């Protein structure tokens, strides 16, 4: 399974990619929503995208909305991984098309548990 990790922080991309790789995903990194969208538009396909919110050029919210608007990309599971912890913002993201939401800081089993909920990982997998 392939995952796209989108965050303007190299450190955070590394952390999320590491966790996903331990869970069996192959990962690709992008530094903002625009870079990620370019990959999708170039025909790259992924099963999962983990997306930060606050990024330059195109933020995570805009990316989620852009993906959600394209029927051909409906199979891409979108998980926001962000410090945005205001309830209103979370609701906005879910309404815009995010399937799941993880607030930073997060433990690796938080990501795993969300993947279990989404059926992308067998339940009960320890982290």
């Amino acid at each position: 399974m392939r995952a796209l990790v989108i965050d303007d922080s190299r450190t955070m991309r590394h952390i999320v990619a590491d966790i996903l790789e331990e869970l069996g995903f192959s990962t690709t990194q992008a530094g903002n929503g625009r870079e990620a969208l370019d990959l999708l538009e170039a025909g790259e396909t992924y099963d999962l995208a983990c997306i930060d919110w606050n990024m330059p050029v195109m933020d995570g919210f805009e990316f989620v909305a852009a993906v959600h608007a394209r029927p051909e990309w409906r199979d891409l599971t979108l998980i926001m991984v962000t410090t945005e912890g205001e309830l209103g913002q979370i609701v906005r993201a879910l309404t815009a098309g995010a399937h799941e939401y993880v607030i930073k800081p997060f433990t690796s089993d938080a990501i795993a548990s969300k993947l279990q909920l989404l059926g992308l990982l067998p339940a009960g997998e320890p982290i």
Partner: protein
Amino acid sequence: MSPLPGVGVDEVTMIASEIFTALVDHRTALLTPWPDGPVAVTDPVHAWVDLSTEPSSRVQLMTGAETAADLTRAFLRMDATEPVQEADLVDAFGEMANVFGGNIKALLARHVEITLPQVSRQPPSDAGAVQLLEVPLAWRGHQPGLPHRPLVISLWRI
């Protein structure tokens, strides 16, 4: 009038504990309040983000360069002996400030914007900046035998 109402020592300590449990120490937070006495940091590194509160505010972190390198190693799950590139340290410590700032932002009643993190060996020098709160913490770190290393979180009105 504080631009960061409701953000006190307890809140800052709780956020720090969660960040360290989740991303640094992985499960057990090796972070405690700094025991009494002055916090002396040689070779300091500063990282900060600003919030568009009224007036503007700043969430700032400060620690020693070696500690910042160890934090980077912890974030990136590197070995204790692996050398840390300056760019990695800047990114990692900056991200820590970003996560701190984001969590403090989430405590506020009104939605505000947060800036990208800045990292420097020099503290930020905004004229008229007033410190609202300082929370010195001690990180035990991953190398047995080392004394507690300080991590100082401060909130400012700017």
